[in-house]
């Protein structure tokens, strides 16, 4: 398929990623064997960033698909489009990845409907094939192709759980929010904020994470911490920045808000 511009999927600059433990080694091994990988962990803990980093490290193109409820199988595989001379086939991102040997990252896979997710099945077993039924074509995946999905087990809904038959096709890696020290240095490097402030932000995140299960489903994510840091760098008062980036997004419970607001005040005093 010469008309695909592979270049656009290559990652040009090293994405900054702070290693947490042995995840790089594990992932490399899985890639070497071309095993499908499931990255599990709460929102905003660095899953996407890790995959970008690995794609860069392995010098492979990366195609990311943010999954959603309205997505159909055609959105992944491809479809016929009408044009002036009749119809024309357009590959979907999954097909493109299989053809060019990219890492295909399906982000938040549970958001997609289950009848959509089954199209990935034939790509995940030893056949590594993708049938394009409508086109009557059977693609053998490029030797470099690999499938990665992300999955947030914190979602507390039976309806949004992956099918067992899907889960059984992946190796899995657990991600979590980094340790306080690492997380602070991430926030610092990522945003350029000073060390002292970064440490305080992480401390606030910890107080919220202590309330998990007591009214909060998930704590404050690393991503939100970087938002708060950026607001502060742009001259917003730290306590306002934290309220806006860390507390308001995650809860409407007045008691929890009041408690976290107090934590912010006492940490940033």
């Amino acid at each position, binding site marked *: 398929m010469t008309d695909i511009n592979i270049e656009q999927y290559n990652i040009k600059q090293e994405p900054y990623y702070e290693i947490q433990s042995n995840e790089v080694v594990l992932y490399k091994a899985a890639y070497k064997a071309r095993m499908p990988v499931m990255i599990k962990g709460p929102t905003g803990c660095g899953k996407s960033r890790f995959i970008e980093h690995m794609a860069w490290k392995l010098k492979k193109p990366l195609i990311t698909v943010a999954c959603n409820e309205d997505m*159909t199988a055609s959105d992944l595989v491809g479809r016929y*489009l009408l044009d002036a001379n009749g119809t024309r086939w357009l590959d979907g991102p999954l097909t493109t990845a299989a053809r060019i040997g990219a890492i295909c990252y399906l982000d938040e896979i549970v958001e997609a409907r289950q009848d959509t997710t089954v199209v990935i099945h034939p790509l995940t077993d030893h056949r590594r094939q993708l049938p394009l039924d409508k086109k009557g074509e059977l693609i053998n995946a490029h030797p470099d192709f690999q499938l990665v999905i992300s999955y947030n087990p914190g979602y507390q809904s039976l309806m949004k759980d992956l099918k067992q038959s899907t889960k059984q096709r992946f190796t899995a890696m657990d991600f979590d929010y980094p340790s306080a020290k690492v997380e602070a240095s991430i926030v610092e490097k990522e945003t350029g904020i000073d060390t002292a402030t970064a440490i305080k932000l992480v401390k606030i995140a910890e107080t919220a994470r202590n*309330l998990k299960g007591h009214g909060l489903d998930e704590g404050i994510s690393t991503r939100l911490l970087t938002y708060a840091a950026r607001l502060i760098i742009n001259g917003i008062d730290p306590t306002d920045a934290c309220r806006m980036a860390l507390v308001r997004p995650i809860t409407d419970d007045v008691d929890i808000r009041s408690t*976290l607001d107090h934590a912010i005040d006492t940490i940033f*005093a």
Partner: protein
Amino acid sequence: MNADELQAYRDALKCNFKGLDAVFEDCMNEALLLLSEQGIKDYLKGASLVCMIGRGFEPVLVYLEKMPQVAKQLGEPTLSLVSQAVWDLSRSPNGNAIPPFLQTIAEASRRLGSEEQLRLYVKILMDMMERTTGSIHGFHTTIPSPGLPELLQQVPYLLNNLSLHGFKNWIDYGVRNYQNHPERQKNYFCLQSADSRAILQRERHGTLFIDNERKLDLYLRSLWQDPEHLVPYSSGLDELRKPMPYYDAYGIRVPDVYDDVNDANGNVTGIDRYRALLAHIAAHRRWTTAIIADNFSPFQRIAIETLEDSRVESLAIQEYPGLRQLFIRLHPKPDENACKSAEESCIRHRLTILSYAILDAHHPYKNEVILEYVERFNEIISDKTNGTKEIADLAISFVAKTRRQSDQLPKVHFTDTEIDYRDDNRHMWRFIEEGDEEEMFEEKRKLEPEEHEPEGLPPRHYPEWDYNTKTYRPDWVSLYESLHPAGNAADIDKLLDKHAGLAKQLKHILDLLKPQQYVRVRYQEEGSELDLDVAIRSLIDFKSGAQPDPRINMSHKHDGRNIAVMLLLDLSASLADTPDGCTQTILELSQEAVALLSWAIDHLGDKFAIAGFSSNTRHEVRYQHIKGYSEQWCDTVKARLAAMEAGYSTRMGAAMRHAAHYLSAQKADKKLLLVLTDGEPSDIDVTDQQLLIQDAHKAVQELDQDGIYTYCINLDANVKPGEDDYVTRIFGNHYTIIDKIDRLPEKLPKLFMSLTG
């Protein structure tokens, strides 16, 4: 309790009203669950006393029904407290106030939260009674208090709005002004008169603990990871010695109300005062190690206490810098020259100055010794390995260096030396001499497990996971399944009626979830019908040279909620407990919650079964069938639910495996096992705490393999979520902890709906 025992208890209750026999057994059953042996004696004695006053059956009934809960919540001394108060009322002309008085007890104890508070409450009422009971000819009191029955009617409202102190002030005003005006007195106490409402407003001030309990719990948990529970006491009633906050094995004692305080910098709110107090106490709990008191003089002790307070506060400030300002604003700032050392003892004054100087670097003090000791204090603090012991040495040296003859004077300079956000430090001393004999009360009356084999089906055998060897012990557990005995279905209907308001609210959500017969699925490339709107839009795009959306069809699909649910109830003995702050046992609350949930699921039409479990060693896991998939939510099922009882232990893994056995036989897209439990798995034949936790975790994994989604609703408020707690170990992320158990009936159905919605 067998018939003989029942008769023995009945004999101990000296009372012969007709209605008594009909209710006695129920009351006894509850009392036996909630009270100690001594408590039972006091209970029967109290009831006999209430019977003796000859005011009919009602007071006895109220006493019998309400007191076990009250005693369980606030302590058994309340049993005689209340019966004695009834007796006193009956000895006065105020016998008519007895039933309304008893009616207030349950509500008052809920609101007041501790025995001391209830005692004060009773005392306030008795004072009021004495002062308003009329006298003719000077000494015979014969005219009943006009205001007392009115006052009793208003108690729930008053206690919801006032601290006990305010309650007393409000009463005092009425008594003082209307002692001799029966009609106006009545008007005052039923909140009719204008001044009555005005005084209420005046007394309604400050931040009430009871309105902020959850906020404060969250504060302790989130900032200090401390799940200890809080018990209020009445501030400001005891005029001579102000009670101080403290903590011991039973919880953290905090005042029932805090007013805002004003200083030059504005306002410190009541809630922030509570937080300052909790921060101080949490800091002690984290960093103070108790030391032996016997070797120190009283002066040395208060010096050690003061400097230890300063030390833990410094550490807390390192964690949360904002605390410094808060502490500074709440800390008294004695004038350096206020204490006249010729006439009074200055020891407290000196220590308070030192404590303030440590806290606030911009303090105004000039005294060389104070400055020196601030320096030395900071040195000790900067070395992280120093603790209570090192600070004690510094304190002793400070006492020696600043000793004065006048320290011994009986007159102590108190002005500006009370630091009221600090606790009384009782936790930091160990006494060797008195020997701390822990009260060891054994609960002898706990029923011995019955020996007989549970009748019914032959046992099923299940393996158990031994994490030590990483192997299964095959056929290790014997599980007996039986039909749950039936009680009275109407009880459950009554519970549902009680929650009619909630049910209405839930119904609204249910209707949204309820499967519509057909739903339209739009934006389909292939479908059963053309979706005209989209088709036209596409055509326009196409005609104008843009890329048309090919998804111009729509289809219909049957929106089946194809879910099978199994609700597994932990029926172990701990369910008979009444959690702090609740008036019902966990079992009762579970009954209500399960009734509502069943009603909701029935409404949705999901496949649904209920079972309960408990265990008595691995040879006897009981699995009680309450509702099967094929049974309707009908009176038979309700009757079984109504008869639910608590007993024995919690062998969770086997019960889950058995529940899964039924659940996997169901044809459904989604299978959900809900486990409702109040604690970790345990059994009397297992000493290794981890074993049954690991086994339960293994069971969850097995179920997951079978496509069953397991979810735990946990009622154990002491769980600190983290990697190490047992809930996470067993259920991973699939759990919710219900902090306020009395809200379970509301939470459970909502949780189910959000899980499956």
